[in-house]
């Protein structure tokens, strides 16, 4: 038995936006894999929800005219992983969301829910950060576009107003073209687990494959929100690939992060993982891009 107060059932996006503006305190129910747990826990007991789950307009993946990949927020993790567009252009994202929970959760959980929850451990978040995703956010007043980099406001807090709903996630062509990425999730178990640390790296190499043209590195659980490590990226951009460079980038990443000690893992252990996962993800990304170390 779940303790809901009201469940609103919109038939269209317009109706959902109208309901959201009328009931700004109501929560958006997408897959439910986070909200139902919190209702059961009592944290959200007695809440109001707007159930957008049946709105198929908010589901699916396409390439737009300008080459951007558009992922609608209700797309389930398993659909993302198996989508041909993702497989071809953003396999790192497909892999990342395939690390979430187990098959049942990946069938019901949605990418929109994953990032709107605003938790630092969300498996899709670091990869979307690393690919400079742009969010489409709608309300009855219209649509605004927001770089995902600016979306996180703190643990569990995101830049969504009471009347707004996330309606799209875009990865621009320039961001994924000639770019190869790798996501490493470090968790105590290999399934049904939360990340102790997540690291998503992608690289674009120079034409001769000898140097890094652009490297982007993002982490989950290295701080209160999913985060990029600009010092490390800056250090890597334009440099000739060597083992030493990889070590230097990983060391530099440590200066950008802010992991904390919790009962799940110590800060010191997370720092070890931040360094080690960075090295390993970088090496793999470089190899995928045709480079050698």
């Amino acid at each position: 038995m779940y303790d809901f107060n009201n469940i609103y059932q919109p038939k269209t996006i317009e109706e959902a936006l109208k309901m959201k503006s009328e009931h700004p305190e109501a929560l958006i129910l997408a897959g439910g894999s986070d909200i139902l747990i919190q209702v059961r826990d009592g944290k959200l007991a007695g809440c109001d929800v707007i159930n957008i789950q049946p709105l198929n307009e908010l589901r699916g993946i396409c390439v737009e005219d300008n080459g951007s990949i558009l992922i609608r927020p209700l797309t389930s993790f398993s659909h993302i992983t198996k989508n041909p567009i993702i497989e071809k252009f953003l396999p790192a994202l497909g892999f990342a969301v395939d690390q979430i929970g187990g098959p049942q959760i990946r069938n019901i959980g949605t990418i929109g829910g994953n990032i709107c929850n605003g938790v630092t451990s969300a498996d899709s978040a670091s990869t979307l950060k690393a690919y400079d995703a742009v969010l489409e956010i709608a309300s009855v007043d219209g649509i605004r576009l927001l770089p995902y980099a600016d979306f996180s406001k703190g643990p569990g807090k995101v830049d969504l107003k009471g009347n707004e709903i996330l309606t799209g996630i875009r990865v621009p062509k320039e961001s994924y073209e000639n770019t190869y990425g790798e996501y490493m999730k470090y968790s105590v178990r290999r399934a049904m687990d939360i990340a102790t640390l997540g690291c998503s790296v992608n690289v674009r190499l120079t034409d001769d494959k000898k140097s890094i043209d652009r490297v982007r590195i993002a982490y989950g659980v290295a701080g209160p929100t999913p985060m990029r490590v600009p010092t490390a990226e800056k250090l890597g951009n334009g440099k000739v690939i060597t083992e030493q460079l990889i070590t230097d980038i990983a060391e530099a990443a440590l200066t950008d992060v802010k992991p904390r000690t919790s009962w799940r893992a110590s800060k010191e252990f997370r720092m070890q993982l931040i360094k080690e996962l960075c090295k390993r993800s970088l090496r793999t990304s470089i190899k995928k891009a045709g480079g050698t170390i």
Partner: protein
Amino acid sequence: MVVGKKINRVDAVTKADGTAKYTEDLLDDKCLVAKVLHSTIANGKVLSFDLEEAKKVPGVVKIITSFDVPDIQYPTAGHPWSTEKAHQDVCDRKLLNTRVRFYGDEIAAVIADDEIAADHARDLIKVEYEEYPAIFDMEESVNNPGDVPIHEEKPNNVIVKSNYEVLDYDEAVKEPGLIKVTGVYETQKVQQCHIENASSFAYKEAGKVVVVSATQIPHIVRRVCSQALGCDMGKVRIIKPYLGGGFGNRQDALTEPLNAFLTLQVGGRPVKLMYTREETFFGTRSRHAMKFYITSYVRPNGTFAAREIVAYSDNGAYGSHAHALVANAVNAFRMMYPVGAIKGVAYTVYTNNPTAGAMRAYGIPQIGFALEAHVDDIIAKLPNDDAISFRKKNMMQLGYVDPGTTITCHSTGLSECIDKGREAIGWDEKIEKYKNQTGDVRHGVGMGIFCYKTGVYPIALETSACRMILNQDGSIQLQVGATEIGQGADTVFSQMAAETLSIPFENVHILSQQDTDVTPYDTGAYGSRQTYVTGMAVRKTAESLKNKICDYAAWMLNKDRIDLDLVDNHIVRVGTNDVLISLKEVAMEACYSRTNSNHIAAEETHHCSDNTYSFGVCFADIEVDIPLCQIKVNRIINVHDSGTIINPQTAEGQVHGGMSMGLGYGLLEKMLFDPKTGRMLNSNLLDYKLMTAIDTPDLEVAFVEPKDPSGPYGNKSLGEPPVIPVAPALRNAVYNATGVAIDSIPLNPEKLFQEFTDAGLIK
């Protein structure tokens, strides 16, 4: 032959097609819901409750607090009751407790029409406490018990301290040339994690209180409920339906006594008390955390001269099984290597942690880790011995009679188990191959051995009853008080009955449910006792039934009884084996005879006065990723001597389950608590790292089958033992791979990070 054959479980189809009814499936639609209010302090006293707001919640029927329960302290352990006061279980809890002893203690209960109302009302109860400093460390609890003891009956917080000595330890250590090895080993608190949470419902019928519950021990729970309620045992009836795992947690009265009390507070209306996963974690039982100080004196030729252990066991807030577990552990310390002088001291200690109780192998996984880790620490200091030669020189041999318990080694295949495992894992080649490794990823092999008793004789009563009823078609009804809890007991009992009666397996119809008003007495599923003790009752009853069938056939056929036997479902002439008549024809006549109807049935008790040891070994081959602090198990094999294997298929499954539990124990699992409040932090299956299927390597299993002369069918214990040797084998493999000897479990990434950093492997 039915014994020794691979046969599908008798409950396989009904469990697969969903027709097997578990406790929750049997609920009455009109069942009220009870929810327990748990304390939010770890040590103190409830001064008062404010129920005003809670009572206003629509749907609330009644709220019972710790001030409303009978002033009776009762025991909960699933032990046979001792009629001697000195051996009785600790009686130290009430149905709800005003004196709060751990974070999560049961202090009140709400009965409501539905779950939401019950939850809501419970959250609105206000409690005023008087708080005392809490003690979470077992040694601290002994050394510094504080002004207010956790239980006033035990002012030093020590439930029991025991000791023993074999030969003269102080004299033995004087032998010249001995090598001294010391170590301190610690094991963590883990939970049984059976799939079905603690669950029961209760109602009143015909003047009795009936409790339907997922329990391993229905007859014992009946006694405990009668003690808790202060009523006669005949006024309590316990029904045990199909059940989703127990692993020892349900070898304890859990929700049943309170549930029985609650239904009586609402006029006998049905009330369900179903614990959530979170409540099952902190509010039921767990495996004792233990700490062992071991000192050994070893001769350079690789034999023990003397050995000493000081053991502490964290029993948590309430007695439950209390000292029985650490006593078992220090006894096994002696039994495993019964060589030289041996001295043991053991403390069972109250702390303000959740209560520990029985869990698969009852204290032995703890000592198994400590002792087998210690043995590898010894071997590292010996000039001429390796892991196998040292163990073989010192381990228990055939004919050993334990001086503490008189338990005798009637059979042993341990040496053959070791040889078989050594060969299978490629031990000798790998020991060579894994020498002098460098680099981030290193390989290692490790092993651990164990011995384990079969049942609880002579420490406690061993008794079992069985009933068989002949049906008109020549099939039989088989009823036992021993319980099927997923381990396959019903299947092997059916095989045993078919074997001794010489009838087809499918003609044995076992009743999987126990009902204390109907079912023969048995103490239940624990101590790996049922195939041995209940097995003897099944055999005795089958012999008795067979005798009665032959008696009747002799009358029918007008022959001498002595000339007849029941073979292959037919009455035959002894000697020639000539078939005279089918069992079915005898059964029809016995039921419907107009001159001599006889409803043939047999019921026997077996009072068991023997015990025997099972043995086994685990070999593990692992790789350690040092920078990522990860262990990957490449191969793992358990080889068991459990005597004759009744059913190789279910036995293998049992070993798989135990190995999986051992892997979790050795690598990942640990109950975590907030050091300030004592609140459990990871009381769910996300944060409590039970291994998933994908984390589990292929589990290899082999058996060595010496027929045990004391077992009913040559068999010995198997239910619990597979969990024991896994954790030490993994620890010793990490030692082999990295040179880092880790003296506590689990070997989880955080632990490895600490250890590898301390050892300079991570900079």
